[in-house]
């Protein structure tokens, strides 16, 4: 395998506490050395390394997205593992964790393996998240031990939340034994039937049924109660795409009480509010829905004060003909892999002065740690050679017409962003070169 020397860049690696000028040598898919500028010249020459000039660029561990929908198997017209991971690479992500709501639902060792197969032509490492219950029907647990052995890194029924108390209790306990987290999409679907946006004055005016905050917070609180009952075990609950201040407060309280609960937030939930729905813009329709300004601010605060563990995109591609429907009929979700870094740099780094190191922690180090992805989210010697190089100040305009994804359902089309990915390297292979 060939080698790459990345030189002259500013290495930001929170896992090692580095934010300094460093050169980085990648060899055989791993990080071989990290040294002060110039010190790796001889080693690079010896390894016949390709030289990548990174002057003016940030060199960071490849980003890790623990919540994406790659639509394969079964819905290749929306996305394939190849196209979804190409979008990931273009967005600086080298690791993505794929939700199991495929067709068929990924509740088996076979599908879990299939998704990781070389034939999928991935541009990033794909870790499947397996279904927590068979067919995600919420009735019988899947085989957590063998799914883990096949490569699954968590279990979840994502879009079909586990409502039954007994089965959720079983899932938390069984996942703890297997050493896997349970990821819950917290929505009490018993009170959100027919709803298509956040409950409130805007939904009322638009004549749309609204999802109340309580539908999220209520289920989070229920899950935390179950987690508390299992205290002493190793049960780990991860709350997917948190969107409400009330649910975040519940997570904070539980954590103070020593429970092993973590959570993620999607960029659209700290960038946009429900007002983006405007005149029934289906690219502003997702689940959980865009919320009120107070909730958006709470998500920002949670990121700033550390109570939110990581950023995950909930990348959810849908075909144009599916989104060009009546608002209530259009499917939930937006693409997110290519806009996440730009949005996060703009809002967190530039506007709210969050350090680059903290930002990489949220986008890479912590998500990797959360799902126990060994050798990811770090540039320590011996780690996988997963690297993103980005220009933190370059201005560019996100255009869905240029996306690597098969789908274009993003509310951020035409947004000017600062912070442009210049190169993405996955396990030593250059998988994306930006201009």
């Amino acid at each position, binding site marked *: 395998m060939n080698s790459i020397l990345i030189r002259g860049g500013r290495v930001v690696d929170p896992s090692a506490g580095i934010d300094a000028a460093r050169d980085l040598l990648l060899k055989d898919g791993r990080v071989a050395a990290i040294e002060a500028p110039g010190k790796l010249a001889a080693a690079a020459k010896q390894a016949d390394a390709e030289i990548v000039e990174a002057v003016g660029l940030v060199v960071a561990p490849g980003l890790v997205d623990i919540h994406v929908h790659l639509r394969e198997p079964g819905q290749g017209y929306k996305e394939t593992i190849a196209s979804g991971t190409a979008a990931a690479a273009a967005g600086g992500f080298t690791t993505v964790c794929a939700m199991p709501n495929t067709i068929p639902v990924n509740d088996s060792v076979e599908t879990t393996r299939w998704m990781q197969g070389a034939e999928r032509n991935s541009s990033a490492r794909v870790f499947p998240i397996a279904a927590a219950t068979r067919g995600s029907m919420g009735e019988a647990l899947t085989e957590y031990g063998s799914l883990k052995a096949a490569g699954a890194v968590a279990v979840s029924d994502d879009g079909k939340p586990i409502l039954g108390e007994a089965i959720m209790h079983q899932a938390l306990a069984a996942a703890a034994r297997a050493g896997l987290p349970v990821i819950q999409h917290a929505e009490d679907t018993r009170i959100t039937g027919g709803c298509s946006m956040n409950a409130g004055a805007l939904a009322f*005016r*638009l*004549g*749309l049924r609204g999802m109340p905050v309580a539908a999220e917070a209520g289920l989070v609180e229920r899950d935390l109660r179950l987690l508390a009952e299992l205290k002493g075990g190793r049960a780990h609950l991860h709350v997917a795409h948190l969107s409400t201040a009330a649910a975040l407060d519940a997570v904070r309280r539980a954590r103070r009480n020593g429970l092993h609960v973590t959570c993620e937030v999607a960029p659209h939930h700290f960038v946009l509010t429900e007002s983006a729905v405007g*005149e029934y813009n*289906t690219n*502003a329709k997702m689940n959980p829905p865009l919320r009120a300004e107070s909730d958006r601010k709470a998500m920002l605060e949670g990121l700033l004060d550390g109570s939110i563990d990581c950023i995950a995109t909930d990348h959810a591609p849908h075909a144009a003909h599916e989104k060009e*429907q009546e608002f209530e009929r259009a499917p939930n979700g937006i693409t997110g892999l290519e806009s996440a870094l730009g949005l996060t740099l703009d809002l967190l780094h530039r506007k709210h002065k969050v350090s680059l190191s903290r930002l990489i922690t949220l986008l890479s180090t912590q998500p990797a740690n959360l799902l126990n992805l060994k050798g990811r989210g770090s540039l320590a010697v011996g780690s996988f050679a997963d690297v993103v190089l980005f220009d933190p100040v370059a201005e560019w305009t996100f255009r869905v017409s240029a996306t690597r994804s098969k789908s274009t359902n993003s509310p951020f*089309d*035409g947004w000017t962003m600062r912070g442009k990915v210049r190169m993405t390297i996955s396990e030593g292979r250059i998988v994306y070169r930006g201009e």
Partner: protein
Amino acid sequence: MPTTKAITEPTCAVLPNAAQSAGASTMTGGSRSLLSVSSLTVQDVSDILRLATLLEAEEPVARALRLARRRVALLFYESSTRTRTSFELAAKGLGADTALISSQSSSIEKGESLRDTGLTLRALGAECIILRHLSSGAPYLLASATGLPILNAGDGMHEHPSQALLDVRTMLSALKRPENTAGETLLAGITVSIVGDILHSRVARSNALLLPRLGARVILCGPPALLPELALELGPGITIERDFDRALKQSEIVMMLRIQKERLTGVHIDLDEYTTRYQLHRGRLRAHGPQAIVMHPGPMIRGLEITSDVADGPQSVIEQQVRNGVAIRMALIHRALEPVQPVAGRKSAPVRAAKRLPAKKRGGS
């Protein structure tokens, strides 16, 4: 001096759908569409009222030359008697050809999307589409997909703008008020109570959004399950009164709404209690609103929200509402298909040639 402003990419405002970003005029069919009353200025309302009166009074043969052979499609995904018939009669009264497409007897049954249905109608020469749909916001989709002027004939729980306009016309004539005063004062000093299932009512939304802008005070009245507090946030000039008698006492006009059984999901209403508290019957009207004008957008459920003696009584203007529907809808179709110059005040119909209007850009706002 006007300065030239560079067009910059929005960074915090959200862009509409790709299909919509070609410009505001294609997005909503320009000012010729009517998707929500909130897109109307009070001047627009005055103009529409005057145009309705003018067209209504016009000699039918001359009137039928105004939009002779222009093509108007009526696309109805929900059943309708009043709205459909009056839109159809209005279009025909102006000489237009109409085609009715309903979801039960078209390719919609085979799963054709709203977008494709709209494009098909446009390809067949439709110059304006009148849409009734069970899904809130559907007219916005149709407008952006086709670029044609769209008239919203009721979309889900969202709006029913032509109903609100015909209600204004009915109110003015019942109150014996001139319709040619300034728009902001058309209904100055008037209190209108809207009573019943506000939550599911597009008629309530359109009226509650429109009437306060014309000077009226709107009281919304109903039980919390059908009238959440956040209805107040629709806009200024709206109050909530849970006690029907108290609302009635303050009102020159009372508008009754039916309970929309088809849209009640998970809401359970005790009908006996409901009728006790919110039914408009003769005794209640005599006691608390002896002068009040009674309206109902239909369909009525006699014996539930309203009794026959009131619906058919001397204070009722329910049939006038229906009658006014044709005049208002003639004005709306005319506005949709005519050049922007105000027509009100013209004596005859100079536009005879069935020239197609450009579907796109027009100057001004």
